[in-house]
């Protein structure tokens, strides 16, 4: 998709989102959007974090294995650095997991939200 197309779609989404949030001024609708927002944030948040962590760990292990294959005597030192690197990379995903858990416990009860969804249609 061209740049103009992307900008157009994003603008349309923004306008629709703004209009929708204006409509959601009512109590039930506001709760509904909160529910959607938190649910989407949790899903995408941990997804993006896991994606980044996976890429980072993959690069780290790839480099370590290549280094060890080329210079087996340095394997121990490379492994040391790799473990330290993996711990640092993994901590990022743990933060994301923590944030997602915090958000999940902010989600309102499901039953009233489902009622609001049914009523909104």
């Amino acid at each position, binding site marked *: 998709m061209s740049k103009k197309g992307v900008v157009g779609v994003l603008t349309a989404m923004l306008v629709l989102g703004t209009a929708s949030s204006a409509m959601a001024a009512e109590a039930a609708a506001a709760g509904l959007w909160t529910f959607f927002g938190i649910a989407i944030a949790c899903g995408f948040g941990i997804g993006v974090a896991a994606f980044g962590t996976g890429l980072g760990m993959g690069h780290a292990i790839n480099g*370590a*294995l290549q280094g*060890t*294959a080329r210079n*087996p*005597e340095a*394997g*121990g*030192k*490379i*492994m*040391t*650095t*790799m*473990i*330290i690197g*993996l*711990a*640092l990379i*993994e*901590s990022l995903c*743990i*933060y994301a*997991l*923590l*944030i997602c*858990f*915090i958000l999940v*416990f902010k989600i309102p009860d499901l039953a009233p939200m489902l009622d609001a969804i049914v009523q909104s249609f």
Partner: protein
Amino acid sequence: MAIDLDWKAAYREIKLLNWITLLILSAAGAVVLDAASTLGIILGGLVIMANFGLLQHTIRRAFSGEGTMTGTKASVIVKYYLRLLALGIVLLFLISRGWINPVGLAVGLSTVFISIVGFGIKRACKIYTREAT
């Protein structure tokens, strides 16, 4: 620029730094923050230190110094996922109970991160000091 990184010595140093960091963070939390935040820092620090210990244990047991696998591939993968699952369950339990402040928990979970950064800075300083003399 030679970096002498023997894992046993490095791990011992990082472990010591972990405890020192946790002590400083929890002491600062006890003075500045409330009890829930301090408890969060302490529990977060202990959880992440156990996680780091298990991570290094799994990798060290799985590979020899030369990089060849000494354990079975399946056991490494199973241990890795079990560790992550246990970490997730512990975090879920801690947050769902509401005994601790999540921000304090996040600070506590940074213990290993902070100590590894400290370890890196310390090593870098040592190398540059050696080069300068």
